[in-house]
């Protein structure tokens, strides 16, 4: 097989894996948008915050240590213990549930029946608040996140493909793990929302608040539930991105990449978020590989947005978005 084709195949595979990571972030957006019609700008920051908290708990960091030291003149930084990865993840999940409760109690509850744009603005505020709060709580330095996920080149794939084509594909173990986790997450979430009673209640709330109340659904419970699930998805995305590129504040910017993903997949579709992520991932890698050299590279920065723009023109509801049914 010609080298060019082999390269292209490897690029495609890597693009698929990168797409999974985009999809993980997009998934959090879709969940909240579906259930409450709110575009949650803070989703990316939630992933960052979850990753920061996870690292902090794992390494036994003292929260707010800078603040404490500045006020009391002490010099504490670490508790001096290490928490096992699994326990730390569970604790962080607990923190995200608590966060969901706080958001409902102190933000959403006061904005019931406000226009969507107000709620959107509130999530922007929330995003900046969380970014600052995360900084204050855990410090702004780049941290290494290691929860024991396999990393580095996958040897079996490398050897197998070498045996077949005489050229070994480089696939990162972490990307493979992320793919498996994403598939499980999506299947579980789809089943939950389609077939469980809470899932049905969740869709009901998304559709009509008044009707949902009249059949005995507590809106507050559903909101806490939705934000908890979104927090959990953010945690998973945070773990994957954090393991890949370290926990740093630019992590919150990956949320921006989720936007074109959502425009492609549709804001209301869980499978759409995945397919959208894959298309963007593969698309930008292949584009960079084929067209990049002709235009001087760095196409990955804008390709996704141009693709999204084209979709907005020809299919505004995205690939899997709900069709707009209107009776006249």
């Amino acid at each position, binding site marked *: 097989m010609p080298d060019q084709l082999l390269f292209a195949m490897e690029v495609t595979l890597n693009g698929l894996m990168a797409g999974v990571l985009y999809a993980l972030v997009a998934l959090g957006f879709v969940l909240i948008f579906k259930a409450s019609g709110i575009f949650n700008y803070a989703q990316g920051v939630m992933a960052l915050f979850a990753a920061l908290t996870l690292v902090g708990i794992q390494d036994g960091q003292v929260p707010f240590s800078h603040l404490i030291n500045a006020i009391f003149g002490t010099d504490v930084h670490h508790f001096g213990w290490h928490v096992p990865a699994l326990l730390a993840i569970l604790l962080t999940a607990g923190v995200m549930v608590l966060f969901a409760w706080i958001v409902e109690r102190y933000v959403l509850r006061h904005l019931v029946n406000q226009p969507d744009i107000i709620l959107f603005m509130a999530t922007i505020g929330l995003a900046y608040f969380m970014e600052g709060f995360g900084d204050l709580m855990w410090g702004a330095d780049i941290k290494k996140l290691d929860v024991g996920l396999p990393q580095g080149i996958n040897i079996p794939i490398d050897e197998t493909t070498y045996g077949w084509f005489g050229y070994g594909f480089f696939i990162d173990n972490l990307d493979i793990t992320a793919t498996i986790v994403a598939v499980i997450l999506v299947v579980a979430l789809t089943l939950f929302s389609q*077939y469980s009673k809470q899932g049905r209640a969740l869709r009901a709330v998304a559709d009509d608040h008044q009707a949902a109340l009249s059949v005995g659904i507590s809106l507050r419970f559903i909101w806490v539930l939705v934000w908890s699930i979104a927090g959990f998805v953010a945690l998973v995305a945070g773990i994957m991105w954090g393991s890949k590129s370290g926990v740093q504040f630019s992590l919150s910017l990956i949320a921006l990449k989720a936007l074109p993903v959502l425009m492609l997949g549709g804001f209301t579709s869980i499978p759409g978020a995945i397919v959208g992520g894959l298309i963007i991932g593969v698309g930008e890698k292949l584009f960079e590989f084929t067209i990049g050299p002709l235009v001087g590279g760095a196409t990955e920065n804008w390709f996704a947005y141009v693709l999204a723009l084209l979709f907005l023109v020809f299919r505004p509801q995205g690939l899997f978005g709900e069709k707009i049914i209107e009776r006249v």
Partner: protein
Amino acid sequence: MNTQTAESFVTEDGRTIGGVVMEMKNITLRFGGVVAIKDISFDIREGEIRAIIGPNGAGKSSMLNVISGFYVPQEGEVWFKGGKRPQMKPYQVAQQGIARTFQNIALFDGMSVLDNIMTGRLTKMHTNMFQQALWFGKAEREENQHREQVEKVIDFLEIQNIRKTPVGRLPYGLKKRVELARALAAEPNLLLLDEPMAGMNVEEKEDMSRFILDVNDEFGTTIALIEHDMGVVMDLSDRVVVMDYGKKIGDGTPDEVRNNQAVIDAYLGVAHD
């Protein structure tokens, strides 16, 4: 019919009407300076069809919203099943077995007819979130049980053929029927219908009347309804409350109300000579 007796009795057409199940005591509801309901008291007996009528803006829907917890009255008490009801959120009222429909249809447009009606069963489902998430035996058994109940309601209201259709695509009359189905699926103790026949043609109205009577007859469901069509109201209901400008001006059997001078003046039209 003597409305004062607390004992149950049997009507001419053989239905049993029991004691008082819900009692509104001196309800007053204000929106700012506007008095929507002014010191109104009435009761609803178990197994009866109770109508609330009155001209536009009389406060009928507000009264229904007070019963279902959407509005909180400034004064007065709501007694349900012999006890004073504390202030409740609408979803808590629903959990007590009070189901309702809305004047302007509130369905879940994006969901199928079946899913819409299934939401009516939510208050009857008892498996918790973790069992649901894992979909272990118990959650599945429960789902199937409730599905059976929902199918009964679907058969009863003759909407088998639109089971899988998204509600948003249905014509108005059918939407009204699906909304009734969702309320029925909850097996309510008290069913509140806010203008169940508004905007329907004669045929649809006849169908709906038949369903309301059948529900009351077969399941013994207590029904409180608001309706504009006087003919329908007089045919359906056992007792009627008449409201005008937020006040109660009449209460009794259809015949009593028909012959009440205040009601005739306010609602049925006064003869000017």
